[in-house]
């Protein structure tokens, strides 16, 4: 303890002088503002640093490494699993102010940006050039690029466009000891050595800290078409989604909502479904040719009708499409109305196992006596499971329900987390999915990059 106090004092002494008082902060108020994220856990760091460039990050990590002080990187603090919580205190590296887009190269289909750039800002900037950065987590309006790379954020467009991992070509990263490591390159193909970029994407800030991110871009699709269908059976939406995929159609989004979810949204008032609707499916197609898009839309509509769709709506212009998305957007706020707290998990199962998973969740719901609301990305098998909790006493039961849901998901060939990451929230469940030898391998990799364990400790592994 004595040793750590002196090392903190030491660190303050060194860093405050080089960084200045506006970038090296230790007042309680700003420390508190770097203590939480959307997981609602809060742990105070000892210091907060707002780095301005890579050199600042190197200095901080070098100094912390020498003194064995923990470092937790932080983007917008919008993560759901506690990735940005400084559980062992130490120093938080807040990247909010490293928010420049460095380059958009149309001819290479590449963008280079600092980690603090807000995802939607990058998206809008490349869209101005007719380009497209597809990863689109629900938090894209405020999440930082660095954070989404560290968590390998997913989003609605997984089936057609993949996830963040598929759009990161290269990284400039700073290792725990303060040395810079450059991975990948600007070229679209590269098989030179091990793929460290892929290792770092989704590493939740435990292996290295990113300071520059090279993203792959696509041409921006010029036409988008949205469909919304409701079904009388709880599997209706999922079955329709399965047939859509089996028919060799490739929508950019296939969003599923179950009955509870529909009722919640209905009460909320932003969208209306027939009372007998038990599930719904939102389909979004995109492309460069309107005619073929309409052709595909008709196929989707036929499939929905064959699956017994109660209602079917189609929208092309932005405003009408927005209207159809209103239901999807209303889920999160309407759930908060339903009960005070929710345990929100994001399991992912093979596409074909989705209906089975939903039925198993219903079974667990009956057994545990807690309402569970499901919605998710039917295209990629990612189900957002929300166990609704009204009173604190129900929390242990909710955690129990979650554990059983995880076990079922893994048994069906799926995973604990499709896009939120493990962080703090799911660390204790990791062994459900990851075997002993695999865990050992992961720990060895961690030790290789961060031998003293100062980078985002307490995450992923218990």
């Amino acid at each position, binding site marked *: 303890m004595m040793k750590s106090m002196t090392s903190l004092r030491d660190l303050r002494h060194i860093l405050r002088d080089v960084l200045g008082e506006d970038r090296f902060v230790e007042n309680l*108020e*700003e420390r508190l503002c770097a*203590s939480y*994220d959307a997981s*609602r856990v809060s742990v105070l760091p000892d210091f907060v640093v707002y780095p301005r460039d890579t050199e600042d990050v190197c200095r901080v990590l070098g100094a912390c490494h020498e003194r064995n002080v923990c470092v937790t990187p932080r983007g917008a603090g*919008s993560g759901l699993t506690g990735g940005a919580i400084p559980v062992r205190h130490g120093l938080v590296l807040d990247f909010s102010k490293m928010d420049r887009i460095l380059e958009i190269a149309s001819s290479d289909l590449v963008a280079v940006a600092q980690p603090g750039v807000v995802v939607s800002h990058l998206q809008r900037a490349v869209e101005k050039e007719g380009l497209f950065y597809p990863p689109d987590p629900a938090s894209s309006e405020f999440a930082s690029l660095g954070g989404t790379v560290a968590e390998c954020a997913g989003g609605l467009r997984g089936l057609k466009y993949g996830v963040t991992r598929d759009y990161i070509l290269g990284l400039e990263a700073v290792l725990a000891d303060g040395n810079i490591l450059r991975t990948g390159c600007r070229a679209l193909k590269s098989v030179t050595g091990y793929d460290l970029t892929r290792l770092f994407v989704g590493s939740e800030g435990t292996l290295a800290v990113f300071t520059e991110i090279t993203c792959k871009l696509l041409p921006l699709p010029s036409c988008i078409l949205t469909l919304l269908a409701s079904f009388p059976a709880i599997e209706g939406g999922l079955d329709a989604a399965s047939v859509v995929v089996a028919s060799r159609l490739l929508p950019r989004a296939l969003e599923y909502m179950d009955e509870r979810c529909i009722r919640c949204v209905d009460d909320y008032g932003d969208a209306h479904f027939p009372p007998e609707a038990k599930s719904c499916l939102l389909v979004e197609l995109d492309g460069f040719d309107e005619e073929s898009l309409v052709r595909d839309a008709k196929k989707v509509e036929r499939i929905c009708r064959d699956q017994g769709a109660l209602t079917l709506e189609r929208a092309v212009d932005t405003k009408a499409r927005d209207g159809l998305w209103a239901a999807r957007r209303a889920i999160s706020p309407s759930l908060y109305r339903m009960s005070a707290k929710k345990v929100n998990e994001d399991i992912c199962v093979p596409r074909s196992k989705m209906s089975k998973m939903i039925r198993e969740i219903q079974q667990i719901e009956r057994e545990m006596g807690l309402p569970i609301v499901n919605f998710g990305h039917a295209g990629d098998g990612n189900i957002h499971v929300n166990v609704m909790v009204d009173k604190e006493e129900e929390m242990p039961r909710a955690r129990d329900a979650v554990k059983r849901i995880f076990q079922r998901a893994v048994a069906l060939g799926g995973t604990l987390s499709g896009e939120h990451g493990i962080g703090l929230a799911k660390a204790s469940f990791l062994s459900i999915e990851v075997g002993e030898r695999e865990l050992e391998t992961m720990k060895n990799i961690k030790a290789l990059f961060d031998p003293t364990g100062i980078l985002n400790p307490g995450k992923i592994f218990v």
Partner: protein
Amino acid sequence: MTESLPEISFPLVEALDRCARCGQCRSLCPVFERNLNESDVARGRISLLQAFLEGQSISEDKLGELFYSCIKCYRCEANCPSHVEYGPIISSMGFLFGLKGSWVRLVSWMLRWILPRRRLYDGILCLARWSQIMLPSQRGMSMRHLPISLFHRKAMPALAKVPALRRAPESEGRGGVLLFTGCLGNYVYPQTVRSTESILRSAGFRVEIPRQQLCCGMPLKAIGDKTGARRLAERNADLFESMRPDWIVSPCPTCAGHLKRGYVELIGDRAMPWMDHVKDMSELLVQESDLLDREAKALSGTLKPRVVYHDPCHLLWVLRVREEPRRLLQEVSVLLETEQGPRCCGMGGIFSALHPLLASQIGSQRANDLLSANPEEVVTGCPGCMLQLQERILASGHSIPVLHTSEVIARHLDRQKR
């Protein structure tokens, strides 16, 4: 919790607990967009206030400072996925930690003295008008500096020769529409009051502009002075209770929003009876009159100006009025929208005085948004936005006029009559 906390009637602890820490407010806050400080968004403030109430040693001065650095556009509240009631939270923050420094005390003392005394208020503004006339017009269109450099030497429109209330017709009794002028409407833009009145009359409403009305109290609330604000609210409540208007309309959505949603924070249940009766003029015209149908027929073949509409934050996010002004403006103009969607103009009342540079930056950005739509006129529904946008547009070297929605519609109705 410290012992000296004044009583807050609002269930503050529960309200703070609703925040899910999702971070959505980071994408909505005009102040955060500039300075990127977490403590400037609702999530940061809520966390700090919560920590303070839990007994952590958060500096009260810092909490006071954060109250003043909020521009109070309420955009985060209107768009919060967890429905956190940020409005009452930020007010509570002001009541608890505002009003500490000597200068705010002085301002509050002055406002408490002047605002409830109409003749004194008139007199002071008359003096200000004369001193304003002495100064040369700086940027054309009668924008001048006020002698007091409160607004960071920001140019101001000429104060009205005769305040709107002084010209108000005698009251005809209870009911009808009570037109609440607001201070800017009364002293700076009386034409907005006149045009609102004439439109409502053409639409068949009986309009009352009672001279006993006082400042809504927002300026006092905005510096954290609950007592001062409550006194004004009570006097206005007396007036509303005796007049029993069917509707309360103000050309200033900040006043209207405060009457509708903010008075509860000051006078509790007493504000309930008229909450639903406060409407924007555009709502009343679209929902409660057939003016639009009548006009739509008469409009064919007229030459319409190209106008771009700026959503005032308090109209959009507090009164939640978006479509109605557009419906009206579409009839009388070629209506343009900004590519960027609604964004704050950076006025924020007292905010411009405390953070003049930030306010100007936010304002210039908004002025640019509006000018890039290439309009002949900028139209908005708020005198505060008018003041800020006109100043920023002139400062950027353009001479596009900024008008109130009611002015554009009244001008059109006038032409029809002729």
